[in-house]
């Protein structure tokens, strides 16, 4: 039983490789990435370009550097794989999100320095990849949680444009939240 199902999987994969359309994405610094069209279409922006028939040879992405683009592609590949997974392997996981393998993978994925996180957010926004945008925004939210306003400013290098009097007023408006 096991061997026959394995061979079925293999032959399906071979079929897939023959028929899979590829698309080339070009980063701002001139590097080209060839990816499966289905993976690239995780990005709504790219999906529209392809559907509008404007994707001739390459799709230029002038707002995304190669370093970030390769990470984005990694994210899309992983999530596309998980979505396309056949029933048996998916149902072996419980519905509890803490043991969902993608949650763990996602958590590791965003363990990056601030610069990379910042660029990932902008890329996810530009490329319109909802899952990645939610994930990166959640990471930013987690960096804000539990911190005082001053600590938040320091973490995100935000300039304080309140005068001391103005800031006191704002705190007074919702005093309880600052205690």
């Amino acid at each position: 039983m096991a061997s026959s199902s394995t061979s079925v999987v293999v032959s399906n994969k071979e079929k897939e490789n023959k028929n899979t359309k590829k698309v080339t994405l070009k980063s701002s610094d001139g590097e080209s990435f060839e990816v499966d069209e289905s993976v690239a279409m995780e990005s709504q922006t790219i999906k529209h370009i392809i559907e509008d028939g404007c994707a001739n040879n390459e799709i230029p992405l002038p707002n995304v550097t190669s370093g970030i683009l390769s990470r984005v592609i990694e994210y899309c590949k992983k999530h596309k794989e998980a979505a396309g997974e056949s029933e048996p392997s998916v149902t072996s996981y419980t519905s509890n999100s803490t043991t969902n393998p993608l949650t763990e993978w996602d958590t590791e994925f965003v363990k990056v320095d601030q610069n990379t996180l910042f660029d990932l957010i902008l890329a996810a926004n530009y490329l319109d990849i909802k899952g990645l945008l939610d994930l990166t925004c959640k990471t930013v939210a987690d960096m804000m949680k539990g911190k005082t306003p001053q600590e938040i400013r320091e973490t995100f290098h935000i300039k304080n444009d309140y005068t001391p009097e103005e800031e006191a007023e704002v705190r007074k408006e919702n005093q309880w939240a600052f205690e």
Partner: protein
Amino acid sequence: MSDKEPMWDSLPSEILTRAFLQLPIKSIITCTSVSKKWKSLIQNPSFISTHLHRSSSDSNNHLLLFRLCPDEGTVWDKCEREVYTLYWDNNIEEEDFNEHTRFDSPFPAQSCSVIFRVVGTCNGLVCLARDLLSYDNSYILWNPCVRKFTRTSKPIVSYSTHGGFEETTGFGFDSRTNDYKVVRVVRLMDREDEDGSSLKVEVYSLATDEWRMVTAGLPSGCVVRGREPLAFVNGALHWIAFRRNITNNWQSFVMVFDLGDEVISEIALPEFLNGFDGDQYWVRMSISVYRNSLALFHQQDFCSPCLNTWVMKEYTDESSWTKLFTLSDDQGSREYVPRALGFRRSGEVIIEMHDGQLISLHFESQKLKVLGITGYGYISDHSINGNGYTFFDSYLESLVLLDEPNRAVTY
């Protein structure tokens, strides 16, 4: 890649708000003090609206609000202290019924006065009326999540202008104008209008802080009972009203007030009521929300006492009233028929037993879950349609009133 720090300040606003939306409410408020830009992003109606929308579509975040009876204290204490608790509305059978948080009532108990009656909740706002024992002059709209409340201006109909009256109130949201409205339905006891009408309806708008009488389309010759529950569904408030039929008995029907166009219409109640000999005014029934339609709870206190529940499967289709279930109380006592408080999102019903014990009934399987929390049970002056002390409703955390620093009081 440069070594310089990323320009977080230059992030597009929609990305920043996306991050704020993932924060607990207290943290969101902290962020208003980080910079003026952050404050303006958060304290604006559009963000509050998006936050609310997100709150309502996140099924892991559904809550139930209860106003329960305090555990300790004398009978007087129980009528002066208010206990508001939020529980998670989880549907998983094995899980305990878990408390999320409690709210302190910010309103000091006035001596010799009784607690508020909870009129209703909508989008995180709780509407309170101090009309359990006396005539009140205003209502309170309270958002316990952001610790703000505002008092409405004085209504038009008052004891000094119109004499004695029975009143009932409802609360809802008008999505067309993005406004919260309180509707007050009053039955004058001491006088009547020139055309013999004793029913008055006035509506309050939070946006204008004004009350306005509703005169168009008000059916004549109708009355309401005091503290009749009003059900808010499909953008309209619904309540049970009565008019005389050909045998000169009070006959019940549902009066509908659309909050958007402020038009009054009617829906008939289930046919079983037609079988009542005499005044339906004294039938122990109340209206409630069931999914996106109406439910009728009927405490049958004759023959075999039981709680009957009817639902209108197709909203406004009067022929679709269907009996959903009957719950008999083993005690078989006429006085103490269990009282239904409302439906959970799952369709389970929260029921208060005579001693105040609250249970959640899954009527298809007939499984009762004892929740371990207690309401007021039967208060000696309990009214025909519910006692107004114990309160239950589905609840959504929201930031409503956060953008009203001048009108709302913070505590």
